[in-house]
């Protein structure tokens, strides 16, 4: 089912010197048919042209391996105020429970005994509920959390458990031509393969086969197009189209609050790796590249 959003978008594509314009309604698509309904006319033209001259873009599949946050974010001041207000209101609108009823009875009984209205033999308790409460409050004041929490080193980029409140992405340093570049683990698409399979291959070839990652869909989550530097350009390829696939580091058990990352590096492919949060990506990656990834992570 396609649902239409409100505005139209005009998109400009440069292909082999000629310019192609097309417009499409932005809609949330889940099957082939509804997309083809909008693009059918234009796609025919493109296909005819592409069969005549093959596309100058190399197809690549990249993996955006995301480590989800391990620890909740702190409550803001406002949230704390609101929570305390709600607790206060719940207390005010509540009725007395059995403990409190008993307590009231007992205090009444003790007052009556003191004033002489009732006999001392009617006391059916040795320790009153009020005394218990006093004890509990005293114990609470004396209690100190004497436990030391794990010091998760935020500065070590290779530690998967760094910055437990943020979304982290794995990036690796690879050779591109003569330079070493920080980018997502990518692999060129081979024939007889889906793009998703080439993305999975990218992950295993860079990080080894022991890595746990769950890919969510067969469709790519993001897209980035770049041109090779002029030395690296061949007759066949002007640049590359990178299709990014989202994968998540799984955390399945309730009690596990740290993630594990079993690496088996192939040092020819991956010279270095880092787990990087959104604000740190600019230090490693080009701005457009980091923007492309930024908006794919939630």
């Amino acid at each position, binding site marked *: 089912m396609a649902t239409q959003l409100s505005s139209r978008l005009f998109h400009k594509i440069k292909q082999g010197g000629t310019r192609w314009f097309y417009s499409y309604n932005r809609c949330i698509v889940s099957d082939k048919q509804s997309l083809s309904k909008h693009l059918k006319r234009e796609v025919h033209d493109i296909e005819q042209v592409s069969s005549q001259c093959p596309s100058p873009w190399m197809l690549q599949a990249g993996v955006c391996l995301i480590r989800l946050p391990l620890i909740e974010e702190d409550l803001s001041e406002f949230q704390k105020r609101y929570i305390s207000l709600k607790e206060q209101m719940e207390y*005010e609108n509540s009725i007395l429970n059995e403990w409190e009823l008993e307590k009231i009875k007992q205090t009444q009984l003790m007052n009556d005994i003191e004033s002489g209205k009732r006999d001392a033999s009617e006391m059916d308790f040795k320790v009153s509920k009020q005394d218990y409460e006093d004890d509990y409050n005293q114990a609470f004041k004396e209690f100190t959390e004497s436990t030391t929490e794990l010091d998760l080193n935020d500065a070590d980029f290779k530690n998967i458990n760094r910055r437990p409140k943020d979304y982290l992405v794995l990036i690796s340093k690879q050779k591109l031509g003569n330079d070493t570049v920080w980018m997502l683990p990518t692999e060129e698409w081979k024939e007889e393969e889906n793009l998703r399979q080439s993305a999975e291959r990218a992950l295993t070839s860079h990080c080894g086969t022991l890595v746990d990652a769950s890919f969510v869909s067969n469709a790519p*989550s993001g897209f980035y197009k770049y041109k090779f530097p002029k030395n690296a350009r061949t007759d066949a390829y002007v640049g590359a189209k990178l299709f990014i696939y989202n994968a998540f580091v799984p955390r*399945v058990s309730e009690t596990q609050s740290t993630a594990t990352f079993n690496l088996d590096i192939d040092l020819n492919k991956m010279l270095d790796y880092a787990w990087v949060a959104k604000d740190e990506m600019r230090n490693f990656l080009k701005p457009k590249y980091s923007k492309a990834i930024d908006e794919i992570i939630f």
Partner: protein
Amino acid sequence: MALKKVFFSLPVCSSRWISTSCSRSAGFQGSKANIPLEMKLRMIERKKRRVEKLSKQPLAFIPITDFFIPYSWKMDKRARSKLEISEEEEDKRVLLEKEWARKTFRSRKQESWKIKLLLRHQQRALEELRQESEKLYNAALQCEDLSIPFTCRGPVQSTPLEGYLPPLGGYEHTDPLFSKDDLSLPEV
């Protein structure tokens, strides 16, 4: 000549004629008033037998449901003494509630915007893929081999302690499903 009283039949359609004693299932009024003693005794016995039958079965437990308040809780002696809230305090509370409404609306909007962005990026990637090759595009739209249902545990509240090994396994709920409290008669 004496004037005769003539009753004029008013033009009333039969469907609007309402009579309270003409209900079909009502039976005869006062049908149970004058019954011979024997029949009365028989009826009473029948009722007794039915009650005995029901009382022999064990009482059915009522499942614990939070939204049914036990009758005993509505008695006055359970009421908390009301705190007096000054006007300023009330104003503060109301303003806080309004601010909270504004903030949640805003955060909801941001979340839905993020989701829209994600979908938009996926859309664009699919379109670009389509331009490259139809075959790969079709393969990308396949619904097999997906990790559905996708399960993922959410974040924890605090960092793990040093050298702490959590116990293995999940949680088993041992709360009783049924309560006996609701069956007690109201205290008078």
